[in-house]
């Protein structure tokens, strides 16, 4: 059995404070009831771990910042001086990420660390990041992790996991990787070991939450069916309300597209990369004006296909969408990617 312990809420806070005292950056859900986001916290008292605590955006910006410098330079065209970016130096703990968020980080790993050339900036940060997820004790109406291979207590992408038990019992904490072990303080961190009954309780809780979500796994050859549906007119209907903003991509734990641009004066500048989204009009527009995705239906289709067809095709069937539901909850026009997938994957006569 994986090493695991039982902690009271106070002991969890003590542990977090000790991590802070040891000089680690701790990023956790924080903020008041209105807007909770993953933030760097300066004390354990700021951390929000209760059931209803749900950070509005994913924690991806701590591995993949909204904007980061790729290089800076000074120039006068006859000579140029380049300076590469400073690599990340601080150890950071992403704490209180939901299992769906942690799974999202593994998708980012695939994008940035895969292929012939990994991304050094991302890799540096990833190396220095330990992920402690928080299992879910309640579902939200937009959740659908179970449909896409996740679970309320899923451990994909986690180095350690806190499982909340019904009050006043506190939490279970399990270390899942060597990094996680190191974070909890080695093999004997001093808390009582969790028992089999504790885990039985945790499993029952996870099953209850999964039942609340009420979505069975999407099965069958999703990429194949979606590719077959590529040219169907249904996409125009599905995307009719879409206003072409970037909320879905930016709050998503696994969306990773970015733009590269220079900001410069006459003498010096920086080249930076910033979040970008396939839902915006100009994403694929050539300098000639030609746009392979000239309308919103084709752009929306790209989003759905990328998540449920293209990425899985090169990842042994693993879906890019992790079912966090943020895009569903935050879309101002009420777009729902779940219905888009269900509709298109069943529209094709098989």
């Amino acid at each position, binding site marked *: 059995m994986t090493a695991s312990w039982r902690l009271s809420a106070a002991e969890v806070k003590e542990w977090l404070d000790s991590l802070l005292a040891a000089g680690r950056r701790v990023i956790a859900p924080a903020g008041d009831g209105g807007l909770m986001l993953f933030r760097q916290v300066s004390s354990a008292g700021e951390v929000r771990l209760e059931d209803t605590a749900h950070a509005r955006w994913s924690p991806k910006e701590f591995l993949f910042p909204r904007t980061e410098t*790729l*290089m800076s*330079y000074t*120039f006068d*065209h*006859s*000579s*140029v001086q*380049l300076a*590469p*970016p400073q690599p990340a130096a601080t150890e950071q703990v992403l704490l209180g990420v939901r299992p769906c968020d942690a799974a999202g980080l593994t998708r980012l790993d695939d*994008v*940035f660390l*895969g*292929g*012939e*050339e*990994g*991304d*050094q900036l991302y*890799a540096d940060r990833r190396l220095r990041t330990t992920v402690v997820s928080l299992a879910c004790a309640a579902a939200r109406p937009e959740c659908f992790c179970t449909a896409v291979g996740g679970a309320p207590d899923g451990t994909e992408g986690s180095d350690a996991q806190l499982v909340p038990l019904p009050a006043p019992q506190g939490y279970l904490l399990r270390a899942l990787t060597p990094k996680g072990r190191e974070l909890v303080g080695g093999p004997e961190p001093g808390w009582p070991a969790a028992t089999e009954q504790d885990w039985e309780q945790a499993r029952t809780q996870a099953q209850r939450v999964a039942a609340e979500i009420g979505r069975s796994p999407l099965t069958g050859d999703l990429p194949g069916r979606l*590719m077959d549906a*590529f*040219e169907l007119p249904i996409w125009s209907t599905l995307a009719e309300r879409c206003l072409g903003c970037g909320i879905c991509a930016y709050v998503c734990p696994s969306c*990773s*597209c*970015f*733009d*590269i*641009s*220079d900001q*410069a*004066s*006459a003498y010096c*500048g920086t*080249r930076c*990369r910033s979040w*970008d989204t*396939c839902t915006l009009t100009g*994403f*694929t*527009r*050539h*300098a*000639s004006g*030609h746009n*392979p*995705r000239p309308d919103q239906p*084709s752009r929306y289709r*790209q989003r759905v*296909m*990328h998540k449920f*067809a*293209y990425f899985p*095709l*090169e990842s042994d069937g693993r879906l890019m969408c992790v079912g966090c539901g943020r895009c569903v909850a935050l879309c101002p026009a009420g777009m729902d990617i779940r219905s888009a997938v269900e509709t298109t994957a069943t529209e094709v006569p098989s």
Partner: protein
Amino acid sequence: MNASGYVPQLMRISAQRDETSDVRTLRLDQLNRAPLSWRSGQFGLFSVFGLGESAFTIANPPTRGDHIECTFREMGKVTAGLRRLSVGQVIGFRGPYGNSFPVEEWRTKDLIFVGGGMGMAALHSPLRYVLDNRDDYGDVVILNGARGVADMVYTEEMKEWASIRDVQVVRAVDPGGETPEWDGEVGLIPQIFEKLGPQPDNHVVIVCGPPVMLHFMLQSLDRLGFHPEQIVTTLENRMKCALGHCGRCNIGPFYVCRDGPVITAAELKLLPPEV
């Protein structure tokens, strides 16, 4: 893992040649003199400091490998800035990226290069490679089309190529693009191609041009009995990272920067129609 995949190396413009009023070819020499190798068909990202990067194919073949060349048309912010630079000034280069033309597989075959407009620039490297290794290849036909006489690129080189053994150069302008002195063909590329009456046997057709030209060329090639495996093209898409990370240049699951830009018509058929 690349230490600084986004930091370019520096190159100095050592020569330039204006092909047309808005198309220029640059010759670039490395500042750091480290060996640079590439294969025909690969591309790079060229930096204009202060403005940004633009993706161009590496126009010269590795057989002429002590410098690199690119041919570009002024289209937007970066290319306009690039055209304002002059010989002696410094730009950035990162690459080579992408896959390459399977020039070894073409040995002993008869080759037809079909370049429309700026598409000719993408064919320049493999074509030059083939001509530099003339004995390894069969007959070569070069069909180059442009909107008008003033838009023709590589005009001097075309003359040189026409004089090489068993190389036929056919130049065409769109109807309405001819001048009184024009002695080449007048017509759209697919029509001129069909007029040449090529036989599919032992042939490879390498075609590059605007999406609409590619579309009609593929139809013509199909009509003439060419198999999709015999037809090779090179794609372009809006590009930023060129490393397969930024998610922008894909056509379905195929990322132009990473899985392309070279692709056969057979492979292209399997992709969604999103060129």
